[in-house]
Structure formats: C-alpha cells, structure tokens
C-alpha cells in the first residue's frame, strides 16, 4: 500500500526552500567548491582546479595564522566580557524593586540599535582628540593621556571587545534571567537555613542551577563571535595592521580587497568547519537539556 503524499506542507514550504537554497545553501556549496580553484574576481568563470593548493598556501600564510589567533583572542575576550556583564546585570534584575521593567528596558537598549550606530557612537567616544571616552578614562585613571584607540594595533582589539560586550550583553542577560527564574526559591531558603551567606548561595545554588543554560549560552556566544562581520568591518575593517582581522573579516577582505576569490573561499571553508564543529556541540547540548526536562 502506498501512502498518499500530503502536498500541502510541500506547497507551504516551497518559497522558503527556494530562497534558502539560492541565497544560503547554494552559495555555501559554491564557496566550498571555489576553495579548490584559483579563481579571482576577473576570471570568475575560468578559474582552474588546483586541488588543495589553496589550503597548502593557507597553512604557510602568516596572515592566516594571525587571523586564527585574532579570532581566538577576540572570541574568548568578547564571550567572557559579554557573559560577565550579562550575568551581573541578570543578578541585579532578578530582585524585586520599583521600576524594574523600565530599568530592564534600559539594559536591553544596546541590543536594539543598529550595529552600525553602535560603531559610530564608540568611534566618536574614542576619538583621540575630543572623545568623551578618553576624557572619562583619564579622569578615573585607567589611562594617563588620551589614546588613538582605533589606530594603534595593541588598542584596537580591546576597544572592539568593549563595543561587542556593550552591544551583545543583553542577549546573555535575558537568557540568564530566564535561567535564574527556573531556580526554585526553596533551594535558597534551605541554604539560608544552613547559614550560607550570599556568596556561598551564589556558588552552591545559583551557578549549579544555571549550568545547562550556561553551556548553551556560551556556545551561542562563541558561534556569534566567529560569524560576526558587520561590527568589526564597520569599526576597523580588520586593521590597523591586521590586528582585528578575524577569519570572517579575512575571508571578506581577501575576496573583495585583494580579489582572490578561491583563496578567500579556502579561508571561509576553514571558518565553516570550525563553526560546524561548534554547532554540533551546540545542538547536542540543546537536545540533551531538552531530554533532561
């Protein structure tokens, strides 16, 4: 007996299938394929198959290793700062006080403005001559004199991490806030009965209660940091002296500044493989935490 095919879901999903196929999936397939060709923008349809030559060149390219290092440092620093701010503010907001909804909205706002606007505000605040950020940092004693944050290679990455943390912490905060609300009040009560102070309660009740949320959130933040292009590109274009050139930005610059499409595709393919590895762990932890519920 043959099962009757229900065509309705197929019709309903058709437009999505076409769009995702043409704009996301086919380009990814083509991108991976291009990494085996010596294609440039000018000879796009006539690139020659060169096997693994792009990858061989890549692994001897100091700019590639530099980019891998920048990706790791930027990823680690921005995830740690984003998470720390998110957790701190989630704990502050997880208390009862007047005007909590309003304060929460203020904390979410950085996430709601266009990334480009966040970049422009920070670029102005960090202006070497008139930037208010420099003024305030000198005033509280972090730096001795105003710095040209975005044109010195040892300062651009920290500036970018601060911008990222400011713009992205609301996502972490909201997810952690949702996680905090699943911890039963009785556990805190029981800990208080045993004479546990605030810090002990935090370490022995709050942190274990957030464990499954933490794993998923941190993986999500890592994935986002590897994929991020708009903010980094609009802020520094990967400079100065490639000090902020993550793999994403290197892929883009290699293709569109240096016009080496095949080589760029090889960089992008390495990025894709790293992302796939992390997303498998990410989906695996989501499935495991759903089963646990």
């Amino acid at each position, binding site marked *: 007996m043959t099962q009757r095919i*229900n065509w*309705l*879901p197929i019709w*309903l*999903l058709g*437009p*999505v299938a076409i*769009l*995702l196929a*043409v704009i*996301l999936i*086919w*380009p*990814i397939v083509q*991108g991976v394929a*291009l990494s085996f060709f010596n294609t440039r923008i000018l000879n796009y349809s006539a690139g020659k198959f060169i096997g693994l030559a792009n990858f061989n060149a890549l692994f001897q390219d100091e700019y590639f290793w530099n980019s891998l290092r920048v990706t790791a440092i930027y990823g680690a620093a921005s995830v740690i700062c984003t998470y720390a701010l998110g957790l*701190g*503010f989630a704990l*502050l907001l997880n*208390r009862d*006080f007047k005007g909590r909804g309003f304060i929460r909205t203020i*904390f*979410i*706002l*950085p996430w709601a*403005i*266009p990334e*480009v*606007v966040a970049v422009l*505000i920070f*670029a*102005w*605040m960090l*202006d070497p001559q*008139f*930037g208010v950020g420099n*003024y305030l940092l000198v005033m509280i004693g972090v730096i001795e004199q105003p710095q040209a944050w975005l044109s010195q290679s040892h300062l651009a990455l920290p500036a970018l991490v601060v911008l990222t943390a400011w713009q992205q912490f609301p996502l972490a905060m*909201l*997810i952690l806030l*949702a996680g905090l609300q699943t911890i039963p009040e009785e556990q805190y009560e029981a800990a208080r009965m045993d004479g546990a102070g605030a810090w002990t309660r935090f370490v022995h009740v709050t942190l274990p209660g957030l464990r499954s*949320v933490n794993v998923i*959130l941190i993986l999500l933040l890592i994935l986002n940091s590897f*994929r991020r*292009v*708009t903010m980094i*590109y*609009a802020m520094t274009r990967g400079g100065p002296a490639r000090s902020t050139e993550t793999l*994403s930005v290197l*892929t*883009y610059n290699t*293709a*569109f500044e240096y016009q080496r499409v095949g080589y760029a*595709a090889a960089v*992008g393919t390495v*990025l*894709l493989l790293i992302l796939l590895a992390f997303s498998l762990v990410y*989906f695996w932890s*989501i*499935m495991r935490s*759903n089963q646990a519920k």
Partner: protein
Amino acid sequence: MTPARKKSILNGFWFVLTLVCAAIVFFPYYWMFVSSVETDSIFTWPPHLIPSGFSLESYWTIFEERDIGRWLLNTLIVAGSTSLFSTIIAINAAYALSRFKTTTTSVFTVIILFSQLLPAALIVVPLFVIFQQIGLYNSLVGLAIADTAFILPLAIWLLKGFFDQIPVEIEQQAMIDGCSQLGAFYRVILPLSLPGLVVVVAMSFISGWDEFFLARTLIASQDQWVLSVGLTSFRGEYTLDWSQMMAAAVIFALPALAFFLVVQRYLVAGLSAGAVKG
C-alpha cells in the same frame, strides 16, 4: 543593628548599584544625542558632559548637505520589502512546521536550524556573483530578498512557537464547520496569533533596516545606498563633523528603537526561549 534594618540598607545598596550600572549602559545613547544637539562646538576639551544649549542645526545641515533623504527612502524600501516578504513566507512555512509531522517537515526543521549558523562572510563571496548573474545586483529589491533569506529562519522559528500554542482542536472545529484546512488557518488561527505576526513584521523590518554587510556587498552605486552604508562612508573623511554624524545616527537609530519598544515584550520572550530551546 536589627536584621530588618540591615536588610533594607542592603536592598538600598543593590538598588543604587543597579541605577549606576543602568546609567553607564545608557551613557553612549546620551552622548549620541547630546553631541547631535549641542549648540557650542563639540570639538572642545574637556568635553561638555552637560550640553550648553539645544539646537537642531546639525539635523538640518546633514539633510541639506548629504544624501540622507535619498538613503532614508532606500532604507525604508528595503526594510518594508524585507518585512513584507519575510512575513508572508514565514506564516505559511511556520504553519506547515507546526501542524504537519512528516519527513519533509523534520528535514526542514534541521535545515532551518543549521542555516542560522552559516558564516555570512563565506556566503557573500559567491552570492556577489550569483546576484550579478540573476540580475539582482545593485537593486534594492534584490537586497531585500537577500535580507529576507537571512532573517527567515528566525522568523519561522518564532512564529512556529506562537502557532504551537494554539490548540489543533480550534481549527478542527472550523474544518467541521466547512472550512478547508488552509481556510481554517487563515480565518481562525492567524487572527488568534496576531501578537506573533506583529513580532515577525517588526523584527524583519528592524533587521532589514539595520543591515549593513549585505548592503555593503550587493549595492554598488551611491544613489542606491542605504543608511547603514551611507553613514559609515563618512568615517573615512578628513573633515568629519561628528555633530552631524551623531544627528544622522539618531535619525537611523530612532525607527529601529521605536519598533523594538513596541514589540519588546513578545520579542524578548520568544528570542531568549528560542536560543535556549533551539
């Protein structure tokens, strides 16, 4: 000190700390606005933390001297079309994923989840050429189509969450009363999920409005630029007037903020649940 008194002091401390943190988080917004309306020159040291006056002159100047009006219109076209396309497509797809459990739909669920995590930097390299081949390069509608593809996975996922909450019995009742399955969906389920629709309309509008990376890659000529690309182009200039720049930033940020505030309650719940539950 009595425990009650100690507790109220502690509460006061946390409250003040919360306010201080909120002020620090809010400061960049404050500074954007202050810089755009300051009457004195903003190029002073030390900077005036409190503006010495209020003037909209930077706003008038930037509209007169730059193509802001044109870019605003282009951005509106892109964001509007993105919102329209994404909502129409997402409604049908989310309904299919919510109500049919077949191999097709489960394959689709996996594709949609994975496509959210693909690296845009690799996608745009071939997409740049594909768009030239199919005639969508340097076109605002083409850009909106690309934006739609990037926001669809999230839009579908959010909307599916709303449809999942509506009991199947409601549309079964409508079908007994003589509706077709699709008819029951459009006439009964859709009106019930109005908040979900509003969220998807607003969210896809915001994402089309904000988008920079695709616009930077897929649009060539200056008269087709959107605000995100136009604004960042000022940065390379030698005589950059930050006051006008901040005025432009306010103009660019306000619509996105307004849309966000309208739907934040639903959006926040849906997004944080979506990220954790997958």
